[in-house]
C-alpha cells in the first residue's frame, strides 16, 4: 500500500478510529491491532512475503528469549550469529543472489573458465533491508545486554512490523521503539496535529517536488547523449531533489503517521542540503541508517579509536556497505566509495565534527563562507548521485564527462516532455527558500504564519502535484 494512494487514505482513518476508540482500553489488543494493520498494509503489496516477516519475527523473538537464559559467552555468541546469518541470509538471497552469481560468472570467464549460470527470477520483498536491520538491532542490543529481551510476542511483532516505517524506515533501534509498545498510549492532540502537519509536508515533498523532478530526470538521464552541459547539470540537480523529496517525504509521512498513534520515531532527515561538509551531510541524510552503521558496524570495528590505517579501512567499510545496502549494483558501491573519498580528508584533518550546529542559526542569510561550503558539498553530493541514478558505471562516467565538456549548444533545451529543461528550477528555488526558513524545525508549519503556510501547501499539493503518473517511493526498491 502506498502512502500516496486512495487505499491508504481509507486504511489510515479506519485503523485510527479502531485504535483510539475500540482497542484503547486494552494495551495488548491495541498492539494486536497494530500488528494486524501492519500485516494487512504489507500484504496489500504481496501477501506471500508476510511469511518472511513472521519468520524473522519468530527467530529474533526466540533468540532474544534464549539469550536471556544463556550466560555462557560462547553460547551467546553462537545465538547472535544464528540470528545474523538467518536475517542476512534472507537479505542476501533475495537481494544479492543474482548479483554475486553474475559477478562470479564474469570473473571465471575473465580467467578463461566458462561456467554456465542460471540467474533466478527473484522478486525483492519490499522493505526487507529495513526490517532486517531493525530486528538485528534488537538481537545485538540484547546480546550486548543493552536491552532486556521481551516476552511479549505481540509487542515484539508490532516493533518489527509497525506499518508506518515497515517498508522504508526510519530504521528504528529496539531501544527506542520497542519500549513504546509496552506502555499505554494516551492521545495527545498537539502531537497528532503535528503528525498531520508532517504527513502534509511529506506528501508535498513526494507529490510536488520528487514526482515533478522525476519527469525531468527520466527524460534527461534517458537521453543524456543528446543533452548539453546545462541540461545535464539540471538533470543532476533535479535528481538530488527527487531523491531527497521522495525519501525524506516518505520519512515525514511515516513519522507523522506514527504520531497519530502516539508513537515517536526518530528523525531521518535534517535538511541535508544545507550541510557545510560531507561529514555533516551524513549526519543529516538517512540518519537512521547512518546511526545503525555507526553503532553496529563502525564502532564494533574500532571506529576512529584505532590506528590511522584501520580507521581508513573502517571508513571505507561503512561507506561501501552503505552503498551495497542500497542495491546489488556496482554503481551503488562506487557511490559509497566516492563518499568515503570525500570524507577521508575531513577525517585526516580532524574537521569531520566541525559543523554540529544548525547553519546560520538565528540569522536570515548565510555568510559567504557558509554559502560556498554548502554549495561545494551539494556539488560533491550531486556527483555521487549521478552514480546512484545511472544504470551502469559507464553511463555515469559518460554523463559526468559530457557535463564537464561545457558544451552549451542549443542553450536552454526544449525536452520531449514539452518543457524547457530549466523551468523546474523555479519550483526548486521556492522549495529551498521554504526549507531554509524552517531549517531549525521539523516542518514549515510553525509560527504566526502557520495557517497561511498550510493553505499554501494545500494549494501547492492540489495544483502542482503530479497525479497523472503515481509512482512508487524510490527507497521501496532497497
Amino acid at each position, binding site marked *: 500500500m502506498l502512502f500516496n494512494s486512495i487505499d491508504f487514505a481509507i486504511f489510515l482513518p479506519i485503523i485510527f478510529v479502531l485504535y*483510539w476508540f475500540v482497542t484503547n482500553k486494552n494495551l495488548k489488543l491495541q498492539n494486536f491491532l497494530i500488528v494486524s494493520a501492519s500485516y494487512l498494509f504489507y500484504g496489500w503489496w504481496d501477501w506471500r512475503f508476510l511469511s518472511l516477516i513472521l519468520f524473522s519475527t519468530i527467530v529474533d523473538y526466540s533468540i532474544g528469549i534464549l539469550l536471556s537464559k544463556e550466560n555462557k559467552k560462547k553460547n551467546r555468541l553462537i545465538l547472535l550469529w544464528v540470528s545474523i546469518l538467518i536475517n542476512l541470509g534472507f537479505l542476501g538471497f533475495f537481494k544479492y543472489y543474482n548479483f554475486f552469481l553474475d559477478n562470479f560468472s564474469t570473473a571465471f570467464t575473465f580467467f578463461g573458465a566458462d561456467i554456465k549460470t542460471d540467474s533466478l527470477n527473484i522478486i525483492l520483498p519490499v522493505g526487507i533491508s529495513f526490517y532486517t536491520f531493525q530486528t538485528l538491532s534488537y538481537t545485538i542490543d540484547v546480546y550486548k545486554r543493552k536491552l532486556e529481551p521481551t516476552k511479549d510476542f505481540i509487542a515484539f511483532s508490532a516493533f518489527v512490523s509497525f506499518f508506518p516505517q515497515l517498508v522504508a524506515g526510519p530504521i528504528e533501534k529496539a531501544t527506542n521503539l520497542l519500549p513504546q509498545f509496552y506502555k499505554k498510549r494516551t*492521545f495527545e*492532540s498537539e502531537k*497528532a*496535529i503535528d503528525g*498531520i502537519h508532517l504527513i502534509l509536508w511529506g506528501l508535498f515533498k513526494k507529490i510536488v517536488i520528487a514526482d515533478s523532478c522525476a519527469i525531468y530526470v527520466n527524460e534527461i538521464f534517458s537521453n543524456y547523449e543528446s543533452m548539453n552541459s546545462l541540461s545535464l547539470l539540471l538533470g543532476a540537480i533535479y535528481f538530488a531533489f527527487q531523491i531527497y523529496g521522495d525519501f525524506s517525504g516518505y520519512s515525514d509521512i511515516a513519522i507523522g503517521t506514527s504520531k497519530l498513534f502516539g508513537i515517536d520515531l526518530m528523525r531521518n532527515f535534517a535538511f541535508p542540503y544545507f550541510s557545510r561538509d560531507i561529514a555533516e551531510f551524513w549526519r543529516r541524510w538517512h540518519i537512521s541508517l547512518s546511526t545503525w552503521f555507526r553503532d553496529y558496524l563502525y564502532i564494533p570495528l574500532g571506529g576512529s579509536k584505532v590506528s590511522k590505517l584501520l580507521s581508513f579501512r573502517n571508513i571505507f567499510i561503512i561507506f561501501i556497505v552503505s552503498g551495497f545496502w542500497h542495491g546489488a549494483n556496482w554503481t551503488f558501491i562506487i557511490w559509497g566509495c566516492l563518499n568515503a573519498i570525500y570524507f577521508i580528508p575531513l577525517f585526516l584533518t580532524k574537521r569531520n565534527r566541525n559543523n554540529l550546529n544548525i547553519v546560520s542559526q538565528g540569522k536570515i542569510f548565510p555568510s559567504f563562507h557558509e554559502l560556498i561550503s554548502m554549495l561545494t558539498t551539494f556539488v560533491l553530493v550531486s556527483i555521487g548521485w549521478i552514480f546512484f541514478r545511472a544504470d551502469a558505471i559507464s553511463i555515469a562516467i559518460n554523463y559526468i564527462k559530457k557535463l564537464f565538456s561545457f558544451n552549451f549548444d542549443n542553450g536552454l533545451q526544449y525536452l520531449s*516532455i*514539452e*518543457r524547457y529543461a530549466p*523551468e523546474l528550477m523555479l519550483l526548486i528555488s521556492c522549495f529551498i527558500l521554504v526549507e531554509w526558513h524552517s531549517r531549525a524545525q521539523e516542518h514549515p508549519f510553525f509560527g504566526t504564519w502557520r495557517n497561511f503556510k*498550510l*493553505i499554501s501547501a*494545500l*494549494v501547492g499539493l*492540489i*495544483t*502542482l*502535484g*503530479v*497525479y*497523472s503518473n503515481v509512482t512508487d517511493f524510490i527507497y521501496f526498491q532497497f
Partner: protein
Amino acid sequence: MAHFTKYLISILIGTLCLLYVCDFIYTQVYLHSNPRNKLQYILNTTGEHFDTVFMGSSRVANHVDTKLFDSKSNSKTINLGVEGAGLNDNLLQLKLLISNNTISKVFLQIDTNFESDTPSNIAISEAMPFLNQNKIINNHIKTYLNNSTKLECIPFYRYAINDPKIGFREMFFSVFNKKPKTDPSIGFTPKLGNRRPLIQYKLPKAIKNKNSVLEEIIHICLKNKIRLITYISPYCSKIENRDYIAKLKTKIPNLIDLSKGYDDTLFFNCGHLNNEGAKIFTNNLYDVTKNKY
C-alpha cells in the same frame, strides 16, 4: 480528541473548498483565454467557412504546409493534425467544427490509426475543461471513460489526472496569453533536420476488419455535403510490412497512396518528413488532388 477532530475537519473542509475554487478558476481560464491548442481553437471559432481542413496525427501536423497549400489552392485551409491523435479524435474535431462552421473539403490522413477507434489521451486531456460545458464533448467522450462520474463530480479531479496537458503550467500560460509553439489557426509544425540513422518502422501485419469511427466520419461528411479525401502520408524506405498499405487500400478504396517516392534525406525520422520534405509533399498532394476533387 475534540480539538484534533475539529482541526482535522477544518483541514478537510478547507481542502474541499480549495478544490472547488481551483476547478472554477481553471475552467474559467480555459473557457475565456486565447486558444493554445487546436481543440480550443475549434471551440472558439464560429461562423467561419473553411475550404480545406486537414485532419490526422503528427503525420499531418508535420507534413502539410498550410500556408503553401493555401497559396497554391487559393482557398482557406487549416491543418488540424495533432501529435498522437487517432481517428476518434478527428471525429470529435469534425463534430465540433461543423457545429458552428461550414467546410467544403476534409483531407483525412489514414495509416495505422485505422487500427484504433478510441480517443487518445491527448484528446481526452484537452477536452477535460469543457466536459461540463460542451454537450458535444460530453456526449462524445463520456462513452469511452470509465471514470466519468469521478471526472464530473470530484472537483479538480479532471485537471489533476491530466496535469501534463491542462495542469498548472498550461493554465498559467493561458492566463498570460502566452503564444503556443504552434499557432493553432495555421497548425503546421515542421520537423527540422534528420535523425540519423533512420530506425526501421514496423507497420502492423494484420489489419482490422473495419473502423466504426471512420464510417461515422464518412457518414457525417455525406450528411453535411463535405467532400472527404483520404490519403496516406510517406514513410521512409526502412519500412517493414509494407503490404499493410495494400490491405488498407482494400478497406478504403479511394485512399490516395502517397506512402512511397520520397528520398530518405527528406525524413526527420521514418514516419515524419522534415521541413523540406513537407514542402515537397504539400506540393505533391496539391498536384495529385487538384483536378480530381
